[in-house]
């Protein structure tokens, strides 16, 4: 079968590899009808996530048809049309039972690796390094899906792939980011980063009752899309001081909650940029926390910092004094996708949102190397690429 494989920094290739088999009794094998490239795949592409191996199959946003099942699977059968959550979760441990699916105790075969880095291990993820389990990913024609009875959601045949695919990651991720803001009437939510997760965070904040959403980015096309979703926008190209601009826009209070939908690869200006890039180059700091610093400064007292953007290592010069003085609350982590899939499918079915608005490019799997390159450079208005592996 065809699969998108990682070979190093800025080197992905479409290779012919064997088709996956059922390995465990609760596995399924899914024939992929639609798959996508995620902004977080760029962290792998850019070489910021350790423990990838040459030949690893990438991709964690995919859906398709069940074509094989292990002998313990009860509620999933051949022929079912499913969307697969990017978090691999057993459904039976302390965390899964409490809907903290991305913290699953059991699904990471390389838990020891994550424990060495983080003290504890979370769930395994598809195509996201050996630290996260080393599972083969979904940018392929077929994928093995472990614990297929506690993750994949069946979707009705009348809803097209493009409307439900993003239940696999970015819609729940944006939604959880907004939910983590504990939005009350009158709240103003600021969202840094108008990539796909930021766009879903904007729309989810409105679905959850936000009064206003202010979106911050520097790409005009992305700011346009944010405005189309109802947000006011701030462009880095048009202001010297985002924190002051946000104060001016909120009667001096600051946003009630701030969403960092950028994470570890933030672009930043000036001296701080030099500082972070130098430390990254010397391996003294793995992530660039520019957005996080700005959000902490900007947030109103007693507000919430919600972080869906991925961080993987160490950060530096985080204004902890400001966070403490202002009594901020921090909420973050990989998305508990399974918690949100049914709820959001319901919203899609009711026509409250059509997630396909985010798609900018439809391509073949064979075009993945070009897609990664252009997406990484944000060329040609690349925001979200979907690929049909059988085209």
């Amino acid at each position, binding site marked *: 079968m065809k699969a998108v*494989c990682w070979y190093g920094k800025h080197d992905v290739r479409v290779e012919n590899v064997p088709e996956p088999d059922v*390995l*465990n009794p609760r596995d399924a094998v899914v024939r992929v009808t639609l798959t996508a490239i995620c902004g977080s795949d760029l962290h792998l592409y850019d070489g910021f996530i350790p423990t990838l191996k040459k030949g690893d199959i990438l991709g964690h946003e995919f859906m398709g048809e069940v074509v094989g099942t292990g002998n313990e699977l009860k509620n999933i059968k051949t022929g079912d049309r499913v969307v697969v959550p990017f978090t691999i979760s057993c*459904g039976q441990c302390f965390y899964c039972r409490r809907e903290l699916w991305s913290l699953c105790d*059991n*699904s990471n*075969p390389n838990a020891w690796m994550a424990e060495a880095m983080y003290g504890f291990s979370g769930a395994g993820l598809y195509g996201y390094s050996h630290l996260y389990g080393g599972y083969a990913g979904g940018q392929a024609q077929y994928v093995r899906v472990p614990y297929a009875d506690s993750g994949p959601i069946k979707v009705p045949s009348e809803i097209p792939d493009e409307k439900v695919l993003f239940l696999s990651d970015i819609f729940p991720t944006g939604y959880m980011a907004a939910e983590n803001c504990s939005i009350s009437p009158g709240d103003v939510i600021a969202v840094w980063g108008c990539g796909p997760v930021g766009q879903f965070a904007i729309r989810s904040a409105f679905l959850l009752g936000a009064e206003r959403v202010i979106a911050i980015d520097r790409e005009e096309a992305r700011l346009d899309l944010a405005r189309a979703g109802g947000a006011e926008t701030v462009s880095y190209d048009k202001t010297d001081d985002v924190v002051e601009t946000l104060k001016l826009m909120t009667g001096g209070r600051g946003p009630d909650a701030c969403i960092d939908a950028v994470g570890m690869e933030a672009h930043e200006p000036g001296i701080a940029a030099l500082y972070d890039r130098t430390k990254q180059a010397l391996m003294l700091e793995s992530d660039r926390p520019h957005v996080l610093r700005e959000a902490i400064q900007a947030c109103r007292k007693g507000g919430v910092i919600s972080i869906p953007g991925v961080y993987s290592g160490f950060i530096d010069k985080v204004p902890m004094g400001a966070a403490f003085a202002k009594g901020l609350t921090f909420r973050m982590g990989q998305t508990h996708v399974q918690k949100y899939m049914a709820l959001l499918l319901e919203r899609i079915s009711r026509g409250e949102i059509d997630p396909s608005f985010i798609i900018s490019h439809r391509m073949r799997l064979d075009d993945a190397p070009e897609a990664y390159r252009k997406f990484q450079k944000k060329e040609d208005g690349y925001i979200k690429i979907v690929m049909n592996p059988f085209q």
Partner: protein
Amino acid sequence: MAIEQGNVIRGVVKQLKNNPLPAIALAGLGIGMLVAKGSSRFRMRGVEMRPLLKLNSIKVERSVTIDRPAQELYSVWRNLESLPCFIDHLESVKVINPARSHWIAKGPAGMRLEWDAVITAEKEGEEIAWRSVEGSQVETEGSVLFRSAPGNRGTEINVSFEYRPPAGPVGAAFARLLGRSPSSAVLEGLRHFKQYMETGEIPTTEGQPKG
């Protein structure tokens, strides 16, 4: 709980075949129970090894919480013959009588170690303690405790055992493999037990496609 022994064993065997070193390094509880005794002769297959330094006794303690009742975990553990299903390096455990059992572990390069262990204390649903018998190829003692965790969090398992690294070549081979981190090897065994008891399977990626 339905236990897919065949499947788990298949997975373990596969893992060993494909990648013997990690599987052995992950060696669970049994390896810790291995101590080759004295400096007398050791049966080995195809490997010549130098005698070892004598080291001090090593104590290993590890704990894990499993979301199942203590009695259930105890029963599976006490059925010693099922232990090789989740402890990678164990080839087999044969129960000789209620107190005594015969253990075979697989080591690097096709080596095997065999020994007899006796249960020295047991409390139904709470505790099992063991010791290798006098004159065994291997010498160790230890215990496993099962205690209910607060607030319906399942059962806390505490494993602790002590062994002296051996003065012979077989023991040396094992000690070298294990010596770097015997306690993470134990944790890996406990983790597999937890995965097995909570989900009925041990997660794996062995055999999946790659480029």
